[in-house]
């Protein structure tokens, strides 16, 4: 079985994101970029499934600018086998991503697709679901445990009420939660080896997918800053302030 894992290059989670002065987007110049954290869990899970003898090849797919190759290399250094980069501008939207993923699935015929549950930059949380619809495959989102059996899998999902266990038929698509596993570190020798692993570079045109954005971004701005707190002397003053100044009661 082949496993297809998608990875996105995003601003590192430690970086304080800053809105550009002209409100057209966020500052990315010289900002540290890394793999979207839940995507790391997806890569790790694929590696564990392969190590358990249930898969024989892991393909890493990323969509975006040239530098996404670095993100693919990170996954290859963790142990994945080969990569595919589809070149696109970084304003690409989830529906276009889903269409591109479907095209790769047609060509590669994986038995399982693993994705991060959402990207920490746009927080869309749509790609796995839309890909599932386009492919007409079962989906198991927010997976915190995946047990692959013969032709089915049991997936534990993190939901608001607690945990939900679902049984899905293979092939299926899972979106991975951070609780799924603890991703491994890439070792130095494996980083060296990863430099020699193949990355296939494709374009959206050759796959016949129109990736033009459907949404127009009007303005990106920072959330309003929190107002300073005040100390009140007693409950009466608190009620007074809530009623007449904050006007919330």
């Amino acid at each position, binding site marked *: 079985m082949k496993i297809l894992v998608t990875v996105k290059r995003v601003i590192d989670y430690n970086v304080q994101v800053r809105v550009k002065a002209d409100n057209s987007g966020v500052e990315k110049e010289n900002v*540290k970029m890394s793999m979207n954290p839940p995507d790391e869990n997806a890569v790790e899970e694929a590696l564990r499934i392969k190590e358990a003898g249930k898969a024989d090849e892991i393909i890493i797919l990323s969509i975006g600018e040239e530098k996404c190759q670095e993100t693919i290399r990170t996954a290859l250094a963790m142990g994945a086998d080969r990569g595919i980069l589809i070149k696109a501008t970084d304003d690409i939207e989830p529906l276009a991503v889903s269409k591109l993923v479907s095209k790769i699935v047609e060509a590669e015929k994986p038995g399982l697709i693993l994705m991060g549950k959402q990207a920490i930059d746009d927080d869309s949380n749509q790609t796995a679901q839309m890909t599932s619809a386009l492919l007409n495959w079962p989906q198991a989102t927010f997976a915190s445990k995946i047990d692959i059996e013969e032709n089915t899998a049991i997936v534990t999902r993190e939901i608001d009420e607690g945990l939900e266990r679902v049984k899905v038929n293979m092939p299926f698509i899972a979106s991975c939660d951070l609780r799924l596993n603890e991703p491994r570190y890439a*070792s130095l020798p494996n980083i060296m080896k990863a430099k020699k692993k193949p990355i296939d570079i494709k374009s959206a045109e050759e796959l016949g997918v129109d990736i033009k954005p459907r949404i127009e971004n009007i303005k990106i701005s920072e959330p309003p800053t929190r107002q300073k707190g005040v100390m009140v002397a007693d409950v009466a003053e608190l009620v007074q302030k809530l009623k007449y100044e904050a006007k919330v009661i």
Partner: protein
Amino acid sequence: MEIQRESMEYDVVIVGAGPAGLSTSIKLKQINPDLNICILEKGSEVGAHILSGNVFETRALDELIPDWREKNAPIKTKVQKEKFLFLGKKSSLSWPTWLLPSVQKNHNNYIISLANLCRWLATQAEDLGVEIFPGFAASKIIYDDDNKVIGVQTGDMGIDKAGNNKDSFEPGLIINAKVTVFSEGCRGHLGKEVISKFNLGSNKSPQQYGIGFKEIWEISEDQHDEGLVMHTAGWPLDNSTYGGSFCYHAEKKQIFIGYVIGLDYQNPYLSPYDEFQRFKTHPAISKILKGGKRISYGARALIEGGLQSLPKMHMPGALLIGCDAGTLNMPKIKGSHTAMKSGMIAAETINEYISKNRPLSEYENKFKKSWVYQELYTARNVKPSFQWSLIPAIIFTGIDQILFRGYLPFTLKHSHADHESLIPANKAKRIHYPKYDGEITFDKTSSVYLTGTNHEADQPVHLKLKDPDLPINYTLNEYDEPAQRYCPAGVYEVDVVDQNNPKFVINAQNCIHCKTCDIKEPSQNITWVTPEGAGGPNYANM
């Protein structure tokens, strides 16, 4: 059980991808493309741990990569104008630039981000075939039986707080090399080890350090003057404390504003961080910042000792270069070009060592014949004169630098190491710093947030106490535990919730790898060691 470690072989392993280490690798590949070279960098990427003013003198780069302009180096903003202000509490006096010593004139220099220059140098090095590994800290030196350095070991990853291996445990590996180059920057923790092990600092003055702060601001158009370089001395420091500010107007309406304070300050109540914050409230400075927005913050210790404190830079199997040794030119307030040149000289020495069997001690002769030595020689008397306090020092510096151009027939010495300079708290005057206004001055927490610093939470604390009880049993009483104040990131706290039983708290996750604690702790009780690779700040354009 003994950990099984993999090993890799290189001709040269370089510790630290700063200007010195990167220049070494580039020069080596230029003279001998067949050499296998790797660079280990503890930051999550090249540049992530680089912080510098920076007004850049291109001399070393002109020699290393003469066509840097065509290769689109991030060196764009030429210095257009210079100002030097003496600050009183409310007043400011502009010092005529013609009365500045020539080392402080910057008309041929550029305002740059050193982090971005390093990122660019790294791509140049990689194009030549150098292998750079960010996220890997060199944590240990490997010696052979004759005490010759034969390589380094990278840090183990995936160890929990208590020292046990986690699921993700990945043992560090051994990198063997014919030559190891230590270029960790000021107070590198391996550099510190070899200086003491090989006695490299014997017959030298104790090294002198400073702590430097830097913020990047986006300011309003009418206050911005691209290419302006401004320095100040005076307020808020008293005349016996060495320090001053810089304010460089870069491109895109940004300014790089910062403050440097000598770590030989005496009052344990002094808080370098708060001096910097207070400095920004001076009318001459706050008018520049009003209506602007702070976008970055960081701090780093720097070398101030100069030639008198420069240790021997070679040892069996290894070289110590850049500010890991201490090549910064203090009166010039520049260390990038000297660090780069020290690396280029290292490259020549290493190549002759590997291919012609010449000794590494040749480094010393080559260094002495270079312009770096000349620069450091003529600069040598400026910093030590400041032990006489500000006014006599300025008069002396005028005579030394303007009349004699640094060639006075004697050399002043540094008398003490920085950790010896504090006076006991009961003899010192408390300093009351103003409250932060959240517009021009900020608390440490919101500042540290801007550094993007992070360390895996479940790992051993990387700030080691030789005696864990000393902070409470001795330092708190004697010096009111100055770590609370000299740390620019709020790592150290004394928890007095239970007044009879105060606790010393180390928030190691906040650490921004500035090394000040390792330098200033009066009993040298704190040792900075490398945390898990990729930990530490994530500076963008510093």
